[in-house]
């Protein structure tokens, strides 16, 4: 299998963009916290790259092959979490294995993409109601468990993933619209039964910031707005942002790292970072388009949507136009779990790209011989 893969098919355009994004991220973690965190982040990146290149050697189809089993395993981990997991900031998201902590909800995102892709890979245009129903079920079960953790952000990412995969798999447009409409109609139930009071406060704080401007829901948002707004066109310069350095901004090196970038780098360079991300996503969609293998293209669409949702929601959160749910900025925010998940997802995308081309090429090679 390894011999079949040519390094020529490695995406030499997407990879440098990733490296630039990673570099920017490390520098701003430095500015927002300390050298200690930079060092740790570098270790995470190193581990990420190792994982990235290791996974490239395995055919993604084998992942797809075991998708249901992986799904069952991760789901059982999620179920076990309330019994075995530790608690961080009042929510149970983690497993402690030695000095490491594992966050099953992060893996669930990728697992879900693999499972949905596996399930829908050979469907023809116009998915049947059965297919839609099963996909919905596959998404809703882990989603409910994750909301209960509670981790609203990760759970909500699963919605765009499901929609994009269904869309690419060939759902009828009116089915999709009915589907979205039904989802909106059901959301009040979600509000009443699933959300915890602090999550409700956050949503309320987002919708009516004046009412909760005191300590609590509105505080993070306001600090972030002040940071971004005071950045101006050219920014305060790296390491000179007051909101950041004086620690007014909460979660500076994790969830709100984009506010730090915007404060210290200003409008122009923040737009540059956004452009990098957009190119990154466009490359991803391009890979999906050029992949003939149906399972692979569904996986790529799902993973790219995952990245896109994370980027958009995280940035909108710092800009005060999305409720504050704990979603990190891929490849930039500090944190091992998020970094490794992103690398695994990216590795699968690269994997698919390398094998989508090689299949045709190697077949031709065989024919010639």
């Amino acid at each position, binding site marked *: 299998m390894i011999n079949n893969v040519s390094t020529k098919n490695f995406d030499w355009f997407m990879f440098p963009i990733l490296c630039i994004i990673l570099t920017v991220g490390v520098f701003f973690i430095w500015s927002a916290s300390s050298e200690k965190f930079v060092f740790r982040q570098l270790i995470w990146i190193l581990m990420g790259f190792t994982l990235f290149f290791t996974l490239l050697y395995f055919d993604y189809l084998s992942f797809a092959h075991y998708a249901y089993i992986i799904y069952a395993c991760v789901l059982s981990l999620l179920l076990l979490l309330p019994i075995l997991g530790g608690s961080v900031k009042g929510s149970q998201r983690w497993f402690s294995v030695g000095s490491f902590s594992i966050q099953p909800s992060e893996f669930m995102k990728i697992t879900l993409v693999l499972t949905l892709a596996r399930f829908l890979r050979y469907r023809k245009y116009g998915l049947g109601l059965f297919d839609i129903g099963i996909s919905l079920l596959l998404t809703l079960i882990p989603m409910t468990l994750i909301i209960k953790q509670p981790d609203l952000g990760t759970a909500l990412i699963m919605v765009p993933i499901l929609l994009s995969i269904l869309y690419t798999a060939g759902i009828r447009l009116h089915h999709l619209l009915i589907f979205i409409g039904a989802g909106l109609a059901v959301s009040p139930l979600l509000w009443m039964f699933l959300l915890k009071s602090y999550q409700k406060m956050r949503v309320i704080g987002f919708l009516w910031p004046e009412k909760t401007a005191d*300590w609590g829901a509105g505080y993070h948002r306001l600090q972030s*707005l002040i940071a971004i707004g*005071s950045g101006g066109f050219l920014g305060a310069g790296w*390491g000179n942002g007051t909101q*950041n350095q004086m620690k007014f901004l909460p979660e500076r090196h994790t969830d709100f790292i984009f506010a730090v970038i915007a404060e210290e780098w200003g409008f122009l360079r923040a737009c540059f970072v*956004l452009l990098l991300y*957009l190119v990154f996503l466009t490359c991803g969609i391009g890979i*999906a388009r050029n992949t003939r293998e149906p399972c692979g293209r569904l996986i790529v669409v799902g993973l790219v949507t995952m990245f896109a949702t994370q980027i958009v929601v995280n940035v909108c959160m710092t*800009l005060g136009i999305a409720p504050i749910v704990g979603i990190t900025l891929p490849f930039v925010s500090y944190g091992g779990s998020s970094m490794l998940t992103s690398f695994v997802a990216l590795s699968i995308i690269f994997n698919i790209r390398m094998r989508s081309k090689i299949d045709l090429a190697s077949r031709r090679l065989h024919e010639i011989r």
Partner: protein
Amino acid sequence: MYPFRFKIILIIFVMLFIGIVVRLFQLQIIESDKYRGISKTRRITSSPLDSVRGSIFDRHGKVLAIDQHTFDISVQYKYLLYGAVMHNNKAISRIPEMEVHKKAKKSCRECHENQDVWLKELSHLLRIPPKKLLEDTNQVIERVEKLKQNMQQKYGRAIRIREETDFYPVASDVDWEKVIQIEINQDNFPGIRITPKPKRIYPEQELAAHILGYMGKLNEDEWKAHSIRWNNFILASSSAGNDTTSLLYDGYAKNDTVGRAGVEAQYEEELRGLRGKRFEEIICKNTQIEKTVLERPPIPGNNLYLTLDSQIQAYAERSLGKNPGAIVVMNPWTGEILAMASHPRFNPNTIDKDFGKLIRHPSKPFLNRAIQGALPPGSIFKIITATAALSSNCITTRSTFECPGYTKYKNIVFKCWSDYGHGLVTIEDAIPYSCNVFFFETAKMLGGNTLYEWAKKFGIGEKTAIDLPHEKRGSMPKTATTASTMNIAIGQGALLTTPLQLVRAYAAVANGGTLVQPHLLLKITNGRGETVRAFQSENKQKLEIPPSILSSMRMGLQDVVTRGTAKDKGLDVYKVAGKTGTAETGRHKDNHAWFVGYAPYDNPQYCFAILVEHTPGHGGDIAGPIARELMSYLFPELNEAS
């Protein structure tokens, strides 16, 4: 398969990113100034710098009140709470939240390990038992915990509130040797903050306590009122385009002390000075935080020189002794108060400790009887009745009335103090012997209105406008009936006067008819010793009394000492002229004894009033010896002659 659908997904991504850039543009370009403004105010912090309160001196420059530096010790809430929990105080356990903390004591002992060290160390160092250190903090803990609980209920999770990070006082008046001990062994005292705190010291202890007053903490409402006033003042002065330097100074801070009584309160504005400010701008350079400091040094308060002579004040207080009452000594020409004693007294140095006890004491030690004790003047008032009658030509110096020991008006018997009567009496004898009947008859002819007008001219029933707070007005009733006028004429009835009013009235007799302005302020000097302002009397009234009448009054007052109600008291040696008074309260053997006068009679230097409240004796017998003792101090060179 469906390449069109990929385009749609890509278009959705691009649209979302365009939306983000638009929002970013709005925040960073359009509304940038607004947020930059907020960010800037964050970077500048200002902290107040305490000023030194001005000192108070007597007329010869002897220190009566001065600021001394002591230190306050406060503890951060976290440590305070844990110290209180460890000490297992009963008062706290009422709060359910505290139960959790108590349980936490066992489960996470390690994380709180050194948080109650301060309690043991501090109580060891200061030799105060831990219980006492925590005494006042129970309320604080209760309040903060309640607040925290409310916030938690409001937001559904534990929220860090500002009060939790504050420091709260546990000990005050700590001297610098102990503070140094704490500074050296910082590790033993985690979470402890030392703040220098000026403390008001009154080196002469109880001397002139009523005049100096005392200091007290501002309470919450007063502080709010002050800060609103201060802010309005700043707003007004800046909008009027005045000098804006005042903007840079601070008004009162919470827990400031202010003058609560006496000149401390009267001259609060002069004494307190202006608090300075320290501005710190924080600049971030390459992830380093730097501070630049701009300082506006505080302006110390002005010093106060009083007209008091601490020597005379001490004499007056010694003469008064343990009698409840008052002595006022005034310069009859200028109105300068040389001494003002009132008993019972208090010690302004220990006021914090004693306040509760003193305020409830039945003898009312906070009452400055010289200006706040409004009592019937008794015979002291007769000099005013006499002046009124002579000046309005109602009687002459030759008018004679017979005193059989009583007189009648409409079947009411008005008794003279002597049951045997004084026989035929003219004004010459009426004043020395204090014959009531003479003044009853005079009052019949004089009428209530004329007497009222003259009493007002002498300042009876009016505030003297001395520079002390809470002066009593007394009361000079505008009488309707002749009977009540007769009572007023001998200083009884509804007539109430303060010792100071009487001193002023007698000073007018002594100095030839000028009603002076009694005052305590001599001058105010600033920190460099320059005189900022000296006292200027704007309130001197010349009474229109013929000199002949005044001189016959003075003759009468001299005769009181030589042959009248105060003879044989040894006052004649000191050339005292004065009048005794025995004001009846209506109860048997319960009088107010008065002696008001001046000395020496040929060239008056001192005008004085002596009051002894609620005494069984008569004015001459009770107040006379006190006056003699006072005179022996004032004129020591004449003592041998007696």
